[in-house]
Every structure is written in structure tokens, then in C-alpha cells.
């Protein structure tokens, strides 16, 4: 096993044998994985561009993490629930969340208000680690319901330092909850490298809570899918939670506000560029004749169409109405909110008269 974890597909696009996990996939599946990753990457590029153009307040790029996200999300069954952090654009896209919903969040039009039930994808969560507890509670609810669905909770390497994540690990372990904790170790929490977050590889964290953890090459979509599938099987069986550390790299800035040249080498970035997740699958597809030029051209065209739809959608997004300030504070009527709504309306009315 390389330091990058369990691997089934090398950076050179060659398959790697593994005693436990198999990268079996028919050509159609391989192409589908490629397409997911390529579209996500195209969406991501568009996010960065739109932010540069002033159309978005912020964009957190997933560049480099496509395999970790696509491999894991494609291991899920329908009905399994996803709790993302805030960088899981490939996950959201693969699951069918309207990509414009992501852009509404980063444009500042809403807080990312898609319907979590529509595609079993919970809202993005910005308070690091919080969602792991929601995911654990949800998973415990699945057990109560006698459901055989499972939960996957996404979080970063930095998040593992948060007390909430430790509590989630422990509650899930004590409750034997059907949850896969999926840590995308992209080597950085903004500027801080792994050494500032942990003394030992992150997948080991699970041991102390009494459940298994493994590291997988997060840039190898076949390995990620195989390991996540096995983990899901494990948690579904009632054996309790499972931790996956997907070893990957954040190729871009933390967000468009960040300047990574302040804290990391170009050489390191280059080393990781050689392990690009999309390029690997491209090589495999070509080597195994699983895809032809027409396929790649088709995916590219689809990506461009997606980007165009996003561009247009973003530019055309209506600004929210001011009254929305008061619309959803509570589910039930609330006298405090209604009074402020009335005051606001009166103020606006007076203002318009002037």
C-alpha cells in the first residue's frame, strides 16, 4: 500500500491489484464516473471564474477532489443520506441537486436552501464539523425506523480536530449507527497542514472509538468507490460506523479569498498534479478502449453546456425580496417577527413616499 492509501488505479492510469478490494467496473460505469468528475470540474472552474468576475461572493474549489467525491457518492444506494460540508459540489451534482442552488449560496441570494429530502442531500454546513452530529442522529433514526439505508458524512482533515466530530464518532459507535464518516484529507485546513491537526494518520482516529478506519487514495475513483461500498455494507449490517480517510489534495486555493502561495510550495502542488484523478481515469479509459474521442468530446460539450447554463442562471438570478428577512425565521407565526415585519413595511412605505 502506498502512503496515499488503498489504490486500484495508479496515477499512470494502470490498474493496481489489491487483496481485498476490486475495481471491477464495466466500461459504461467507468465512463459514467469520468463524466461525473469532468462535469464537476467544469462546474468548479465556472465557480472560480464567476467569482473573479464579481458574480459570486466566494467560491470554494473542489479541484483535485473529484475522485474522492464521485467515488464515494456513487457507492451510495438511493435512499442513503448525504451530509456534506461546503465543498462537495461533485457530490451534490451527482445526486441531482440543481447546480444553481450551490451558486445561489455563493452569490448570497440564499443560504443554499435546496430541499434535503428531494435528493437525500442535506444542506451545506459551514460551521466545521457540526454536520457530523446531525448525520449521526439521522443514522440513528434510520436504525429506529428499521430502514436499511445508510448515511455518509463528509468533512475535512481540519474538522477532525473539532470536539463535535469526536462526539459524533462516539455517539455513532455507542449507537452502532449506520454511518460512514468520510474525511477528505486534502492536506490543508486553509493554511494549516495535517501536522497541525493530528499526530498520526487520520484514519487511525476511529480505532480509539472502537470502529474501523482506512485510508484510501482519494485521487483514485475506483478505490474510493470500492472502499466506500465495503464501508456502507459494513455499516448497513449493524456493525457500527466506519471511517474513510480519502487522501487527496486541494489543488486550488481554500476559497477564492485565499492565497495559497503564502503557505505552500509550487513543487508540492506539481507533485500532486501528477496524481490528477481525472487524468488517471482518462488514461485508463483510453488504455482499456472503454471510451473513444467522441465520448470525451461529448462530455466536454456537456460540460460547456452546463457552464453556460450556470453562467446564465447566475447572472439572471433575481435578488431576494427584502421581506424574506421575515419569512422563515420561524415555522409558526411569531409576534416578534410579525411586529418587525410591520415596522419594516411601514418604514419602507414612508421611504417610498419621500
Amino acid at each position: 500500500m502506498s502512503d496515499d492509501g488503498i489504490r486500484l488505479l495508479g496515477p499512470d492510469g494502470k490498474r493496481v491489484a489489491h487483496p481485498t478490494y476490486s475495481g471491477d467496473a464495466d466500461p459504461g460505469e467507468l465512463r459514467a464516473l469520468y463524466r461525473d468528475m469532468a462535469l464537476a470540474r467544469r462546474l468548479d472552474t465556472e465557480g472560480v471564474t464567476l467569482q473573479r468576475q464579481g458574480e459570486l461572493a466566494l467560491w470554494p474549489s473542489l479541484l483535485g477532489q473529484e475522485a474522492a467525491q464521485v467515488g464515494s457518492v456513487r457507492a451510495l444506494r438511493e435512499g442513503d443520506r448525504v451530509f456534506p460540508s461546503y465543498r462537495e459540489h461533485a457530490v451534490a451534482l451527482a445526486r441531482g441537486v440543481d447546480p444553481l442552488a450551490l451558486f445561489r449560496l455563493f452569490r448570497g441570494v440564499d443560504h443554499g436552501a435546496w430541499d434535503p429530502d428531494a435528493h437525500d442531500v442535506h444542506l451545506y454546513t459551514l460551521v466545521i464539523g457540526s454536520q457530523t452530529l446531525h448525520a449521526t442522529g439521522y443514522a440513528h433514526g434510520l436504525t429506529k425506523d428499521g430502514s436499511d439505508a445508510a448515511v455518509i458524512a463528509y468533512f475535512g482533515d481540519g474538522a477532525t480536530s473539532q470536539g463535535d466530530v469526536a462526539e459524533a464518532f462516539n455517539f455513532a459507535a455507542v449507537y452502532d449507527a449506520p454511518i460512514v464518516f468520510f474525511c477528505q484529507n486534502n492536506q490543508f485546513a486553509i493554511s494549516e497542514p495535517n501536522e497541525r491537526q493530528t499526530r498520526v494518520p487520520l484514519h487511525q482516529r476511529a480505532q480509539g472509538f472502537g470502529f474501523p478506519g482506512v485510508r484510501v487514495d482519494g485521487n483514485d475513483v475506483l478505490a474510493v468507490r470500492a472502499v466506500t461500498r465495503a464501508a456502507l455494507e459494513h455499516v448497513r449490517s449493524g456493525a457500527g460506523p466506519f471511517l474513510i480517510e480519502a487522501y487527496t489534495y486541494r489543488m486550488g486555493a481554500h476559497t477564492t479569498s485565499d492565497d495559497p502561495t503564502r503557505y505552500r510550495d509550487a513543487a508540492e502542488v506539481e507533485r500532486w498534479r501528477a496524481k490528477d484523478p481525472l487524468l488517471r481515469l482518462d488514461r485508463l479509459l483510453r488504455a482499456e478502449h472503454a471510451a473513444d474521442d467522441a465520448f470525451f468530446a461529448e462530455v466536454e460539450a456537456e460540460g460547456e453546456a452546463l457552464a453556460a447554463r450556470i453562467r446564465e442562471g447566475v447572472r439572471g438570478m433575481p435578488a431576494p425580496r427584502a421581506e424574506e428577512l421575515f419569512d422563515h425565521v420561524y415555522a409558526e407565526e411569531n409576534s416578534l417577527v410579525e411586529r418587525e415585519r410591520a415596522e419594516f413595511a411601514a418604514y419602507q412605505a414612508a421611504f417610498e413616499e419621500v
Partner: protein
Amino acid sequence: MTATRMTLVAALNASLRTALADDPKTLVMGEDVGRLGGVFRVTDGLQKDFGEGRVIDTPLAESGIVGTAIGLALRGYRPVVEIQFDGFVFPAYDQIVTQLAKMHARSRGLVRLPVVVRIPYGGGIGAVEHHSESPEALFAHVAGLRVMSPSTPSDAYWMLQQAIRSDDPVIFFEPKRRYYDKGEVDTTQPAAPAHTARVVRPGADLTLAAYGPTVATCLQAAEVAAAEDGRALEVVDLRSISPIDFAAVEESVRRTGRLVVVHEAPVFFGAGAEIAAHVTERCFYRLEAPVLRVGGYHSPYPPSRLEDEYLPGLDRVLDAVERALAH
């Protein structure tokens, strides 16, 4: 009318029992709520009757308790969480403030989190540090939470029913030093909605506004003022701290012209400030004296041998009443 006389603790227990029986989605969760029945026995017998799947002894971690309750609510459950004592809610504060309070607004109303967080609160029971606090202002300032506190067994029963049935998260403050006070509870006759205040003693000379444990103190003060000085003090039990039923308070103040607010929490940035500011704005020309506030000092809750000095007791309430009347 089939009222029964019971303690406030028994009323809460009965209310939880009703909720568990009525709706299989209701859960009770917290530290020691199961086998032990809670350190105050509010959940006594519930695990025996409804099982470990409905009444859950959780690991000792408040953030985890509230965080997993949110997850269960996302899955369609209605968790009623117990925080063992007021001073131990703070590890859960992040989950309450950044997640529980905001999910409905963040999702533009798509996600509802019907979670109740029960907190035995307040002093006067001779307890050690962290066991006597009144942190309600720290929740009332946060949009998305409802905050309430019953003062009688009947309200304890009914307001908890309403809290559990509410689709909004509720922070439910239980006046622990009134846990063993008794009162009539009619479980067939719904009480007034929890967000409304109630005039619990009418009077024309001055309004005393309170909630939770200090309502009884105010009633006692009204008694004494009537007996000793022939003063008619009106006592308003706010019941809800967020939102506040200002209409009821203003209505009372328009009649009396004077208002004293009494709570155990520190006065500085406390509920009394909000009430004074708001009512003064609305009743500016009607007030004959400034709104006075009686409450805890800006000091950590003291060792129990000092709590009588710290708490707003009868004498301090009467002193404020006198000062307001002297204006």
C-alpha cells in the same frame, strides 16, 4: 373539569408521558433520563414504560445530544432533550445557536426542527456552582428559538405539550426551585397558548412582570403590599420570553402607569432591559415612573450561602415597588 393536584415535576412527567403515548415520533433524550429517571425525576418511569428506544440515556456530551437530536428531527422525530442543569447547556450552545436556531431560515422553510431543549434553571436550592443559573437572555437574543418558562404545574404540563407540538425549536426553562410546588392540573382542558402572557393577579397601582420562579415571589409581594400598604399590584406572568407578549404588558401598564420587572438572571443585558426599553417606547406618555428592574447582579452566581442576597427576593421586589410608587 378533572383537575388533579400535583407537583410541577409530576406535571412535567405527565406531559412527557402524554407526548410519548400520543406520538411514536416523540423521543426523550439526555444524561440519566432513562434508568435513573433524571436527577430531578422528571423522566421517572418513562424508559420502563416506553423502552430504551424512546427514552434514551445518551453519552455525556451536550453538543452531541443536541446535535444528534437535530439529526433525529431531520429524520422526522420530535426529540425532547434534557440538559441536566442550566450551567451545562453551554457545550451545546454552538449546536443550538448556529444549527438548531437557523435551519428553518437557512432552508427557506423547507426544514423544520421540532426539538425541545428542557433546562432546569435558576437558584434558591442551595446547590454548588453551575447549578443555579438563569441563562435565558442568551437564548432569547437568538432568532429562530422560542424561549419559555412555566411558573405553575398546570403551565408546566400544557406549555410542555405545546412546546413538543411546536414545529419550532423551543428552549424550555423549568424553574427548578418550584419543582415541588403543587397546583391543579387539568389534562383535559388546554391552557392558553404558550406565547401569551397572563395576568395572574389584577391590580391598579403598579405592574409586576415576571416569569418562571419569580412569579411566586411577585405574587407574594403583591400579597404583602396589599396587606401592609393597601397597594393593588398587578402581576403578569410572561410565560414566554421569546417572543414576549408585549401587548399584554402594555395593556397592563397603560392601566397602572408603573412597571417593575423581576427575574433571577443578571439585570445587565437581561430580559428586564428588553421589556423596559420596549414598554417605555410604547407607553412613554403613560409611564409615571421609569421601569425598574430587579434581578441578579453582574457577578457569577455566588456560593449558595450568598444566594439569598443575590436573588431578587420579596424585600428587594417590595423595595423596587416602593421606589416606583414614590415617583
